[in-house]
């Protein structure tokens, strides 16, 4: 056991989940993608969501982020029932998503990317009448945000395409962290990156959590999951098979639960989270 570890799985007794779902069902024709899945994300944690292809993992995440509307079941954000009809509604409720394919505009500078769709206007009539954006304020704010996540980029007026792949994803993570009020969903954030660049992004994700935002991490990469996650949600056959504690369970047992080789009932209790 990892005795003196400060970042143990959060003590859940008495804590309310920031995001929870109960009995979610989503059918596509006669294919049932989610079949009564439950879900909980607690404040201050990184929850990894893993599952084989077709396990209902991506449908679950899409339901949580507003990209699909579940047929049955309920989703609660901070205890309040929510019914997202679009990703925009989820975003307005404080849930930001980082996508695997580096969803940034390469020719635009960093500040523009951070504020894309949420541009700040200048004060006074220049902003309200002439609708001028405040380039300086946005650059300043971008600089502050990038510094708070310790992303070492000197100039916010630098085009994103001049950055390395890891730094580009850093811009996407920083954007999500800047605007998320409740939580951040990271959908395979390292899938498009090399080893070294993945390392930078993993550090960044930890810092996002340490700065106070809970994170849902979807990943196929087991070492990444084990490096980052406080708890592991295993999706299987449209349900939640188990929630595992990465500090006590082995990677191979985790894969066994994911593929069905190990029945959830036979998981030792200390390995559950």
């Amino acid at each position, binding site marked *: 056991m990892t005795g003196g570890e400060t970042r143990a799985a959060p003590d859940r007794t008495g804590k309310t989940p920031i995001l929870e779902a109960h009995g979610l069902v989503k059918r596509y024709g006669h294919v049932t993608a989610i079949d009564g899945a439950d879900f909980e994300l607690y404040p201050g944690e990184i929850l990894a969501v893993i599952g084989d292809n077709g396990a209902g993992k991506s449908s679950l995440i899409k339901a949580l982020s507003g990209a699909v509307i579940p047929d049955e079941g309920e989703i609660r954000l901070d205890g309040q029932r929510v019914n997202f009809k679009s990703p925009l509604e989820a975003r307005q409720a404080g849930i930001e998503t980082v996508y695997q394919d580096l969803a940034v505009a390469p020719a635009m500078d960093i500040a523009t990317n951070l504020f894309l769709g*949420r541009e700040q206007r200048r004060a006074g009539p220049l902003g309200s009448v002439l609708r001028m954006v405040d380039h300086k304020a946005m650059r300043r704010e971008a600089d502050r*945000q990038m510094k*708070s*996540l310790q992303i070492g980029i000197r100039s916010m007026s630098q085009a994103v395409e001049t950055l390395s792949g890891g730094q580009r994803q850093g811009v996407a993570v920083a954007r999500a962290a800047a605007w998320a009020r409740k939580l951040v969903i990271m959908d395979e954030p390292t899938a498009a990156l090399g080893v070294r660049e993945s390392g930078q992004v993993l550090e960044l994700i930890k810092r996002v959590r340490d700065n106070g935002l809970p994170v849902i991490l979807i990943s196929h990469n087991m070492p990444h999951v084990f490096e980052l996650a406080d708890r592991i949600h295993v999706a299987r056959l449209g349900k939640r098979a188990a929630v595992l504690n990465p500090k006590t369970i082995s990677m191979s047992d985790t894969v066994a639960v994911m593929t069905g080789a190990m029945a959830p009932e036979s998981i030792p209790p200390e390995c559950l989270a």
Partner: protein
Amino acid sequence: MSDPNPRTTGQVATAGGAPPAAASAEAGGAAQVETPFLSGTRIAQLGPLLALVIACVFFTTQSSRFLTATNFSLIVQQVMVVGMLAVGQTLVILTAGIDLSCGTVMAFGSIVMTKMAVDNNVPPALAILLGILACVGFGLVNGTLVSLVKLPPFIVTLGTFNIAYALTHIYSNDETITGLPNAQTALGKSFNLGGTAITYGMLVTLGMFALVWFILTQTAWGRRVYALGDNPEATRLMGIPVRKQLTIVYVAAGLIYGIAALLLISRTSVGDPNAGFTDNLDAITAVVLGGTSLFGGRGTIIGTLIGALIVGVLRDGLVLMGVASIYQTLITGILVILAVSVDQVARRRV
């Protein structure tokens, strides 16, 4: 905007408490890419201006009549209409589109203006408005087909190019409309500025360049035009109504073609159904020479102004040198290929 309290402020405070030293070294020490002074992007930006200056210097040495205020006033008057079309074309190309219909849409607008006023006794100002609205209508058709039906802009505007051309000839009975009311040619009138004739149309054109420059660089809407051409998927994911924005770009382009139609009739004093037939390629030439990328997302309206001036200066200078006009076309063709090559190389380097 929607959220006046971005999380940043709170986070700085928390992050200040415990900065993991190793982490900062890792992220901060990552390959810091400096923008070299002569980067591909910079060459693409400065190239057009350099080409314009070189052309001007060359023609000054070749002809004593080149570097005069009167000659430059003439150049601007000659490129005014194509320059105005190129403003609309720039907006469309920045979204990674293309508008082949601009010239014949303008011709249709000019015929609506003139025929309404001359043959149907519609008040001249109202006729102008109707002509502009006709161009806006074409913009709306282009924009809707591109953004909602998701047809390629090349095909859509090739279609509307032909439709506008046909409608122009059907509506005008193939006849040139003459005897325009004064109000419709007012922009062709000029005033003297230090001995040089400046037409009001020139001021309108420059005003339009300034307005679109302001919108593209200083407003959120303008920045989103770039983002849309740069990475439409990322722009959509950021909650920007991409289809609506794209439609409005084509509508705005139509509006600008309508104003170009007014400039056209004020300059020629007739409604000519055959006008504008090759202007689409001239406008695209000006945009491309100005360094705007046909792949969308990069380019400037100032570049388009320079591009239009390059075309005008070349034409004028070669005429002054007594070079046959077919060589102007030859040189313009070579320059276009050169400009696109520079853009491609610049893109590959980043």
